[in-house]
């Protein structure tokens, strides 16, 4: 039973090797797809088996690689948090694969790198050795660079290169942090680091702080919070749709969960509180750029950063309620964001266009794509009874003591509502004078539509029955009891979300005026390039170091 964590990593890796082997002489598309699908299904079945151990008996399944004891060797831990992120990752990976089968433009190399990506993801989640975590991060990243550039278009290659340079710099910083930890306590196992690497045990506080800053900024580039987010919109926007869904839905959050794990093990309370500010700004600032976008997938990519802000801000508070809200939002965002990416991918697939100024009146032509994407938009805007409403309410409730972050979150929600009204106008608006020629519109494959409907049903159900999921997350995954039962569907909460929606409509009206359009055009033109992005990494490293020195809060 204890080797479950090992199998979760080995199975996708084995599938990747198998795909390479059988395609070595002659391509077998059918067999390739079957292998990659079945590897993820087997992982899900294994995770299902482990549910009893993790959730009900509250055990941690530990596997020590090579039989070495935990202090010396590498150990894999499957605890509640790892189980949660590993299974949500596997589910979204399954959906992405099903979607990719129907687009029919992918060769075996795509499935190979996809399996490697899943391997890296599971590894980062499960490993309990900090250097091993670095290695899995690199596996994850190398696979994602290649998958982002898969279409071989100029923009995609440029985005991939931007991501590669900046995230490799991040990897070097992370490695430097690992070196400092190893120098300080002579161990790489997270358990041992938690016991020995602390200020009380003789580590100088500036060294401790430098280590935390290096690790947080190094991994933070992949988690894409402000101001390390500049690579994300292009990379997730121009990647193939199933990859965008997986990267936006899971990968950035898994990177954040790695920070979560390290910070909670090192008990760096100051740094954790600082995430309150990082998170609230991360929620707000990308929304401004999202409002100005005209590319439908890039708009969604900007919202991925903004929604990450919601997850980060509630991690920063650190109470049981806020952590529950954070993980709930993790789950919800991975479902509704992959739903939105898939439906926009279906729009691009059927019409061949990705500029929202050129798309209009699509509701009549493809109602089965339009309805799920409307559900996705309502979820992300936080309209009851969809799941985004529930998790945002949890986050807002736990933020009550902090008025300024709460205000930022409120503004971010208004902007989100406005930009999704803007996006949904491709379905709802009247057809323009020059509609798309009817012949050019392909029909969306049935599997794609079933996938969209499944995801929207999940979004609806996890919104209607919140108390059950909240209980699972708080009692079984975080092992913390919530202070009192929370009433989510109260009158004031629904009122607030309707207020946000109405304000969003006003904001939308404003940005469609002549004056508003000019402002948005200005904003759209100010996309900083790679050099500024690298400078911001250095700057944020220094800022994070200075602002989280102990004794400030």
């Amino acid at each position, binding site marked *: 039973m204890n080797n479950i964590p090992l199998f979760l990593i080995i199975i996708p890796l084995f599938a990747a090797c198998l795909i390479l082997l059988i395609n070595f002489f002659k391509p077998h598309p059918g067999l390739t797809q079957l292998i990659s699908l079945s590897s993820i299904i087997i992982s899900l079945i294994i995770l299902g088996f482990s549910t009893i151990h993790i959730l009900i008996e509250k055990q941690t399944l530990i596997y020590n690689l090579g039989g070495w004891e935990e202090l010396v060797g590498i150990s894999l831990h499957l605890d509640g948090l790892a189980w949660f992120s590993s299974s949500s990752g596997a589910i979204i990976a399954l959906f992405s694969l099903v979607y990719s089968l129907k687009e029919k433009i992918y060769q075996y190399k795509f499935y190979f790198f996809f399996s490697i990506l899943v391997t890296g993801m599971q590894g980062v989640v499960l490993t309990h050795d900090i250097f091993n975590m670095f290695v899995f991060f690199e596996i994850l990243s*190398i696979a994602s660079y*290649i998958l982002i550039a898969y279409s071989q278009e100029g923009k995609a*290659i440029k985005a991939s290169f931007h991501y590669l*340079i900046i995230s*490799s*710099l991040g990897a*070097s910083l992370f490695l430097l942090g690992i070196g400092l930890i190893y120098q300080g306590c002579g161990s790489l196992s997270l358990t041992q680091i938690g016991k020995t690497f602390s200020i009380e045990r003789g580590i100088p506080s500036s060294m401790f702080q430098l280590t935390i800053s290096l690790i947080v900024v190094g991994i933070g580039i992949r988690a894409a919070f402000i101001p390390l987010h500049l690579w994300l919109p292009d990379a997730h926007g121009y990647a193939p749709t199933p990859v965008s869904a997986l990267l936006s839905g899971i990968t950035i959050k898994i990177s954040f969960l790695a920070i979560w794990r390290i910070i909670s093990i090192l008990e760096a309370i100051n740094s954790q509180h600082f995430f309150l500010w990082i998170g609230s700004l991360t929620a707000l600032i990308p929304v401004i750029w999202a409002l100005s976008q005209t590319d439908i997938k890039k708009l969604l990519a900007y919202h991925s950063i903004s929604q990450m802000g919601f997850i980060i801000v509630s991690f920063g508070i650190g109470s049981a309620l806020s952590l529950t809200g954070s993980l709930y939002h993790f789950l919800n965002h991975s479902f509704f964001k992959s739903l939105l990416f898939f439906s926009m991918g279906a729009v691009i697939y059927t019409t061949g266009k990705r500029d929202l100024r050129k798309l209009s009146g699509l509701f009549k032509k493809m109602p089965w794509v339009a309805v799920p994407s409307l559900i996705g938009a309502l979820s992300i805007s936080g309209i009851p009874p969809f799941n985004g409403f529930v998790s945002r309410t949890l986050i807002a409730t736990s933020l009550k003591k902090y008025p300024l972050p709460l205000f930022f979150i409120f503004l971010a929600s208004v902007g989100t509502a406005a930009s999704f009204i803007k996006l949904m106008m491709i379905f709802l608006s009247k057809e323009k004078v020059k509609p798309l020629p009817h012949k050019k519109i392909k029909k969306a494959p049935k599997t794609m539509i079933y996938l969209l409907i499944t995801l929207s049903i999940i979004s609806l159900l996890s919104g209607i029955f919140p108390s059950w999921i909240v209980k699972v997350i708080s009692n079984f995954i975080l092992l913390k009891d919530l202070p009192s039962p929370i009433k989510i569907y109260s009158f004031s909460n629904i009122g607030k979300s309707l207020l946000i929606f109405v304000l969003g409509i006003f904001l939308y009206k404003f940005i469609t005026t002549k004056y508003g359009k000019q402002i948005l055009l200005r904003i759209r033109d100010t996309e900083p390039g790679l*050099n500024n992005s690298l400078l911001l990494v250095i700057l944020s490293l220094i800022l994070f170091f200075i602002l989280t020195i102990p004794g400030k809060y």
Partner: protein
Amino acid sequence: MEFYLAFLILFIGVWGMVSKENVIKKIIGLNITNSAVILFFILVGHHYGSTAPIMEKGVKDVVDPLPQALMITTIVIGICLTSLALALALKIYRKYNTLNISRIEKLAKDE
């Protein structure tokens, strides 16, 4: 002293990545950064007067072998990254006929 040298090399690498416009030079900067971290790690496991960790008769005071083992992994990862980055640079050059990052970004935006 050596630690400061490792950090100095790190800064040189980062400076190269930030200030150079040429894509290839950026990749070289990345390599220098990577090497600086590798040097740092080797220094962490190193003590003066110790010998290589080959356990034969009469060998005492060996250096910590773990950082060296880790750094072999890091070097391999670095090679993968460099080759992938160079491949992407080649693709970029074929597409836009330039290696200047600002011009590439401008051309990609206008595309």
